[in-house]
């Protein structure tokens, strides 16, 4: 095997690391996590000349090697730890040409670690617009490095970068600066105590504030004879170091970097004036939110319809084509419908991340943080929590992951804990079907009651999140440094390639991450619902047929059949009168008889299925929990659906569909709604889904933590079971109590 060169891309946030990464690797990339923690790890392979391959790592953005967040500490750890398998042979520092001064700070630090370093000056396409001119050869000389002037937008300079990577062994690994001048005695002592270690590396290890990873602190502790300095003293030295580095950078840019100050600057200022305006700013943000909602609930409908139809057809095809048996059933009813239930959410997730990626790419997202910061502060949050909370309206899983950019741990924890209250897309199928069933059709101020109810549910979710954030802010005793600094990047037209990669990657992580659990549950469900241990289950068909032969069909089925026949008969007579058909009375009665037989057959099958289910494993399970959910207005069937939807909320509808229509044909989605509407409680003789039980269900789903995948993500993000457990208990108990109160009041 040919040797792979380990390359790490590092740089300030928003300098184009990911864009360079995409250019180098194309679709040959893998996104995962660093072991044990949840910082996103992006790696890929780049084919260079002469059969040489490079392994490319896209490190999290960092302003310097002095870390203040988990993400940054990962980048630093990889650079410091020579034994890490990701430790780079060559570091590629990506800079924004418009912000070179600040970006070079990090460059000089990395250089001081004696790692071979290439400097990428990105966004070259913006130089003429901003009136920037550069003396590259002189800069290379002064920085003792090689430079690639790149524009990922125009795909220029990438070949030069690849060449530099191939020739990495010829790069100088000498430091730019001697940081020891800030405290000569101290550094001398360091050197004497640890002669085998790199000096600057020692310094970094000593001064690190945040280290979640097993950074080599051990090194220092082993020699207790060495007196470290006090925290404030170290901080003072770090400050000196920063000033020293900037002196060096200012000096060298004076000779190599020129900006024509008169060049267009009005673009950013003009847009900022509008986007952060006290009225237009919020109005625009509100309109963008509306557009996102429209996309998720309006536009997604069409692809979702196609996906549903496709899986229904596939399931039908399997059932009619393959020989009947357990495996065919497993495939058609368990696996295919399970996969369909996952894929159907892809359009919504994709639309959300399309918008988020666009907002981030254009630089608008920072303006949202800027606008919302003050509003979020009373709740112990900052503007940075707005994005995760809003992403929560699509899915809590990526939203919880999106909290990684929040540096303040307390703030981050609160955001993670409350995000699952926001109305995620998985609640939507539950809401839609129940709202359609129990909320009357009328209108209020031109808005339908049903739409209003949905809106209220969204507000309720957001309100619950905000109020619990406020509570948590009071209750949680976590000391954390609170400072808020965000960069306001310039406005840019989005790079569509970047947007596409984001959408693809997020969708994939949803399908693969949450999908596995949903599929597993679908299969378990299918198994529990189509197997049983009692004789009643085994002989379901005979028992039901006998019952129908003596007592006739169930009351509801008999009525429904009579209704359906009457409609059919009227339609038939009308057509005969209008001379659409020319048929005699006998033909009419024959046709009616055929129709009757068909309907009877369907009803019989339904009753058999429902009897089987009642006596299956699942039926027994449902009856066990029935007393617990009874006070909320649910029967044992809803009880089962609530239980199974602990895996993921959308399973609720799937379960009910299974419960009510196992073995029956499901031509359209209205069927399940009608079927639910027709369900009569055997005790009260009233519809099971009435206003009281419907509202109770809606509230239950609004507040309950019915999502295993979110819990798993929270566990990973907080690195302990304590927080997800707390979240689960709190949300479930709260949901139960609210649903209980609602049902008892309304019924």
């Amino acid at each position, binding site marked *: 095997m040919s040797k792979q060169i380990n390359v790490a891309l590092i740089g300030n946030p928003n300098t184009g690391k990911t864009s360079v990464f995409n250019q180098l690797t194309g679709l040959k990339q893998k996104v995962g996590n660093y072991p044990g923690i949840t910082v996103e790890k992006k790696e890929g392979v780049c084919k260079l000349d002469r059969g040489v391959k490079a392994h490319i790592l896209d490190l999290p953005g960092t302003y310097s090697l002095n870390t203040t967040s988990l993400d940054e500490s990962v980048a630093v750890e990889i650079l410091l730890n020579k034994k890490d398998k990701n430790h780079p042979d060559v570091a590629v520092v990506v800079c924004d040409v418009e912000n070179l001064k*600040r970006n070079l700070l990090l460059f000089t630090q990395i250089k001081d670690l004696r790692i071979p370093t290439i400097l990428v000056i990105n966004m070259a396409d913006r130089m003429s617009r901003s009136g920037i001119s550069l003396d590259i050869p002189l800069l290379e000389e002064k920085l003792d490095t090689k430079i690639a002037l790149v524009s990922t937008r125009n795909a220029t300079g990438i070949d030069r970068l690849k060449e530099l990577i191939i020739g990495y062994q010829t790069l100088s690994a000498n430091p730019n600066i001697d940081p020891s001048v800030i405290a000569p005695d101290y550094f001398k002592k360091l050197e004497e105590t640890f002669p085998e270690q790199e000096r600057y590396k020692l310094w970094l290890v000593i001064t690190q504030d945040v280290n979640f990873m097993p950074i080599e602190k051990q090194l220092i502790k082993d020699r207790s004879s060495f007196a470290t300095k006090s925290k404030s003293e170290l901080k003072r030295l770090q*400050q000196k170091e920063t000033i020293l580095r900037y002196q060096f950078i200012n000096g060298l840019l004076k000779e190599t970097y020129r900006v024509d100050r008169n060049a267009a600057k009005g673009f950013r200022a003009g847009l900022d004036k509008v986007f952060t305006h006290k009225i237009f700013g919020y109005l625009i943000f509100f309109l963008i939110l509306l557009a996102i909602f429209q996309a998720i609930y309006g536009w997604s409908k069409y692809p979702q319809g196609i996906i549903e139809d496709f899986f229904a057809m596939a399931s039908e095809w399997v059932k009619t084509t393959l020989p009947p048996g357990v495996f065919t059933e497993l495939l058609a009813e368990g696996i295919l419908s399970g996969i369909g239930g996952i894929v159907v959410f892809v359009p919504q997730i994709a639309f959300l991340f399309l918008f988020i990626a666009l907002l981030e790419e254009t630089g608008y997202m920072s303006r949202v943080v800027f606008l919302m910061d003050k509003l979020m502060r009373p709740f112990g949050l900052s503007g940075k929590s707005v994005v995760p909370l809003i992403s929560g309206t699509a899915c809590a899983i990526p939203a919880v992951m999106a909290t990684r950019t929040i540096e303040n741990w307390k703030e981050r924890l609160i955001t993670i804990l409350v995000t699952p209250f926001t109305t995620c897309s998985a609640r939507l199928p539950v809401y839609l079907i129940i709202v359609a069933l129990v909320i009357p059709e009328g209108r209020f101020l031109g808005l339908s009651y049903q739409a209003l109810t949905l809106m209220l549910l969204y507000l309720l979710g957001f309100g619950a999140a905000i109020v619990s954030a406020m509570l948590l802010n009071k209750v949680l005793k976590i000391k954390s440094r609170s400072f808020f*600094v965000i960069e306001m990047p310039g406005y840019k037209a989005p790079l569509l390639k970047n947007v596409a990669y984001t959408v693809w990657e997020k969708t994939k992580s949803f399908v693969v991450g949450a999908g596995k659990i949903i599929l597993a549950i679908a299969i378990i469900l299918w198994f529990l619902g189509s197997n049983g241990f009692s004789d009643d289950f085994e002989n379901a068909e005979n028992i039901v047929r006998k019952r129908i032969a003596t007592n006739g069909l169930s009351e509801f089925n008999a009525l429904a059949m009579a209704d359906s026949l009457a409609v059919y008969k009227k339609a038939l007579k009308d057509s005969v009168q209008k001379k659409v058909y020319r048929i005699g009375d006998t033909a009419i009665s024959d046709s009616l008889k055929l129709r009757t037989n068909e309907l009877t057959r369907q009803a019989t099958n339904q009753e058999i299925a429902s009897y089987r289910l009642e006596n299956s494993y699942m039926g027994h399970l449902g009856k066990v929990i029935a007393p617990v959910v009874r006070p909320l207005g649910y029967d044992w069937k809803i009880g089962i659906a609530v239980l199974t939807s602990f895996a993921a909320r959308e399973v609720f509808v799937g379960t009910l569909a299974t419960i009510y229509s196992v073995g029956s044909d499901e031509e359209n989605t209205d069927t399940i709604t009608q079927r639910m509407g027709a369900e009569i409680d055997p005790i009260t003789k009233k519809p099971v889904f009435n206003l009281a039980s419907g509202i109770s269900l809606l509230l239950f789903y609004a507040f309950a933590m019915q999502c295993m995948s979110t819990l798993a993500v929270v566990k990973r993000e907080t690195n302990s079971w304590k927080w997800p457990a707390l979240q689960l208990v709190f949300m479930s108990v709260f949901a139960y109590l609210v649903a209980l109160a609602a049902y008892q009041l309304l019924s």
Partner: protein
Amino acid sequence: MDGTVAHLKRGQKAIIKEIADGALPIKLLELGCLPGNSVELVQVAPLNDPIYINVNGSHIAIRRAMAALIQVTLTEEAQTEQ
């Protein structure tokens, strides 16, 4: 005239003075809040906080409380175009 960044008006520029040891988070220094650098107030959020400044070519938003820690000497009066 002296003051802090929190005192600036929109469009006003100033030069950062000596910073007391350890008074500011290191991150702010790294972003360019260093003695001698120029700072301009670009925008104020609608609710008067946070503020958005351009320091040394970096555009960043910080809260007023932190801005009040950055001592400056004013160099330019507020532009009156607003």
